[in-house]
């Protein structure tokens, strides 16, 4: 559908980036602050949903040429796969570990292996939510 709403389009252009940034911020801060893979993924997908609402599906697809079904599958694969990797390291299935690194800009940063698992969760959420909304809206 073609909506010619200048105000909405202009606002969206800025807001989407705020939402995306917020989503990533939520995802990364999840370990110690409120946030995490699930909520991060939901915020990210709400940004995509907003884009699809304001512009039409074609336009958005040209800008973001992802197959969201594949993203969902990749997410589930990451979540399950990260569990199997820990078995190869001799710990239990889905066992996690973390280590503090001294990075140049961020200073002392703690990087935990759980982030891979969380990324899997986030990707699945994004993929599934967008897939569902797209399939329903395309089905005219």
């Amino acid at each position, binding site marked *: 559908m073609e909506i010619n709403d200048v105000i909405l389009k202009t606002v969206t252009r800025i807001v989407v980036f705020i939402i995306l940034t917020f989503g990533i911020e939520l995802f990364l801060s*999840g370990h*110690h602050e*409120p946030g995490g893979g699930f909520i991060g993924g939901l915020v990210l997908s709400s940004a995509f949903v907003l884009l699809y609402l304001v512009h039409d599906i074609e336009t958005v697809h040209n800008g973001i040429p992802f197959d969201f079904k594949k993203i969902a599958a990749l997410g589930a694969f990451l979540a*399950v796969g990260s569990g199997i990797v820990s078995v190869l390291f001799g710990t239990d299935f889905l066992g*996690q570990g973390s280590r503090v690194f001294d990075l140049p800009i961020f200073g002392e940063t703690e990087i935990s292996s759980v982030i891979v698992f969380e990324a*899997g969760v986030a990707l699945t959420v994004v*993929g*599934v939510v967008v897939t569902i909304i797209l399939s*329903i809206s395309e*089905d005219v």
Partner: protein
Amino acid sequence: MLIVLLAIFFPFFMAFFVPFLYKRIQSKHIGWFVLLVPILLFILLASFVPAVAGGAHFTYTVHWIDSLGINFTTNLDGLSMIFGLLITGVGSLVILYSIYYLSEREALGRFYVYLLMFMGAMLGVVFSDNVMVLYVFWELTSISSFLLIAFWYHRKQSRYGAKKSMLITVTGGVAMLAGFLMLHALTGTFSLREMVGGIGSLDKTDPLFYMAMILILLGAFTKSAQFPFHIWLPDAMEAPTPVSAYLHSATMVKAGIYLVARFTPIFGGEAIWFYTVTCVGIFTLFWGSFNAVRQTDLKALLAYSTISQLGLIMSLLGIGSMAVSDSSGSNLLIFTAATFAGLFHLINHSTFKGALFMVVGIVDHELGTRDIRRLGGLMSFMPLTFTVALIGSFSMAGLPPFNGFLSKEMFFEAVVQLSQLDLVSNGALRVLIPVVAWIASVFTFIYSMIIVFKTFLGMPKSDRVDKEAHEPPIGMLIAPFVLSFLVVGIFIFPNLIGRFLLTPAMVAVFPMHRDLKGLVPHISAWHGVNPQLLMTVGVIVVGSLMYVSYKRWKRVYGIGPLRWNLDAVYNFFLLKTENGSNTLTTRYMTGYLRDYFVYIFSFFIAVAIGGLFWIGSLEIDLSKDAAVTVNEYIIIAVMMLAGLSILVAKSRKTAILLNGVLGYSIAILFVVLRAPDLALTQIVVETVTTVLFLLCFYFLPEWKREDTKRTTKLVNGFIAIAVGSIVTILALMVQGNKLFTSISFYFEDAYRLAGGKNIVNTILGDFRAFDTMLEVVVLLIAGIGVFSLIKLKAKKGEKDIGN
């Protein structure tokens, strides 16, 4: 021994690559690639034969679900070695044969994926030490054989046969699983070796022990096509012939035999086990051979002959099982000899039956028919095929100089000696077993002769077949020739097999008998003039006479009870259950969402109220609850207002927006109650679902007042109020009733254990990561479900694909 574990997964691993490879080359050569798998595995296994013959066994454990005692333990001992060699050895020959048998137009990629899957599953069955793992592989053989039997799925008969075999073997498999669980309850372990090791301390009078025994036997009998479960095997012949040769001569049907042999140290020595296995085996032997004679389709004939031969092996294992309890000298020798003969016949049967299946496949392939009435005189056109058929059939009939003779003699010896023991208390049974065995052997002789003589001798009936008879391509003959060489070779050097394969297998079956050296019989072709030789002579004489006069007595098959057909019973039950469930399903699956809500909520009400009564206490303790502030009262008031206005909303849009109000109010409530995580999630979920709602709303029909019946309204009202009240009561009760200790202390040191300050996230990602992982997978499945429901729905007017 990690290598055995890798061997199990090697076929699966290769099966993964077959579709990609097939896409690229699109030709028969894919078969050569697949052929490497069983050949490599065969060589690998064969390299362990000397070590296993020396008394070694190899185990390897991968810890899997330690807390439940389910580990992936592989076990390579004498018994699994025999089966492993059969699976890979006959597997190699079958794949070689299939390369020439299947035409390039077939879906070869699919075929070899199924075949490799099946091979891996079979290896898993025989090498698993853990019964749970064994069960998984067991059902995997059922599934992969289902796919193989239904390979030509456009034929109705193929689908029917596949379904039948799967229904029967899976039912048996589930019974077997129940048996395994009972055994676990008794022994406290899932490991077969540990079960056998702790058998001395097992209470054998426990009723569970007998239940487990019967259930496990059910699994074995269905898989090995024992009476009355044999009815699936003839129908499974709809599969391509290489599959029949593989599944129904060498592997799948032998899984039941393997199971019985494997559990002999646990259940052997029990009278029930002895009687059930022996009698079922003997009767199956008779029934199969008796019915084989009247078949006109060569493959059906072979199917019934397989049933009967499996019965023979089963009965030998039954007789041999008494060796577990008996430790006195002479009797013990008889029993162990029976088991030895059973295992020996197992190998022999695979060789001659495999060759015969391939011969029938060649005849079918070259002449386009397997009907005996249309065949004849093929000997002069196909001398090589005829030779293989002759060797295979004569071996099956139990004639020298072929390996079937040796094991058949040992079978006669076992039944004759059994009848002389006091063990069988029932006098009639003592006579019956050898007599039935002998009669069955006469029929075996007759149908073996039918295969050779009706097909290959006599006048050629070229007017009844479409094609000119000639020898098949040489590649198709290699596999059957190898098998017939084995048939003769085993006859000449039987003790080689006895020493390297059968003796170590006996060690596995009878771990309680330390000194097996004296118990393993020496196989000899000439064993003097004794009852069993006289029985064989009788079989040949009577069998020949009956073969010649077949036309005169074939009316026997028309007599009442003999005509009685188990297939009809199966079909009747299948039809009844299908119709019954169809009627039932169409009655409650109305297609209206509101009806499904009624079911769901009624169920919820029933369970909740039932649960409340069961607990018997309805305590509501509000003293520990926090005080409710003004803010919360305001939010609650807004929520109630929004909720109530949905009921009277005039348009759908209003209703959806009001629902959104409800959702956002909950989010605000979470903020007030200082749960930022929940509030955040709630806001985003609410946003996304509102968008979804609005999208769906676009496609919904006009919103209008529905004229529902007064009773329906009342019922719906009652359900709504009941659900609301129950949820409220449950929520209030939660604080007052603590049935279990709180789990929250477990997460108190979340930072120390998981290194995360956000407790919600450490629970999701670390403590309960398994739940989260499965939730993610469920989410994915739901997404795929929605996608396929919407995108792949049948076009209007397109007919539903159903049965």
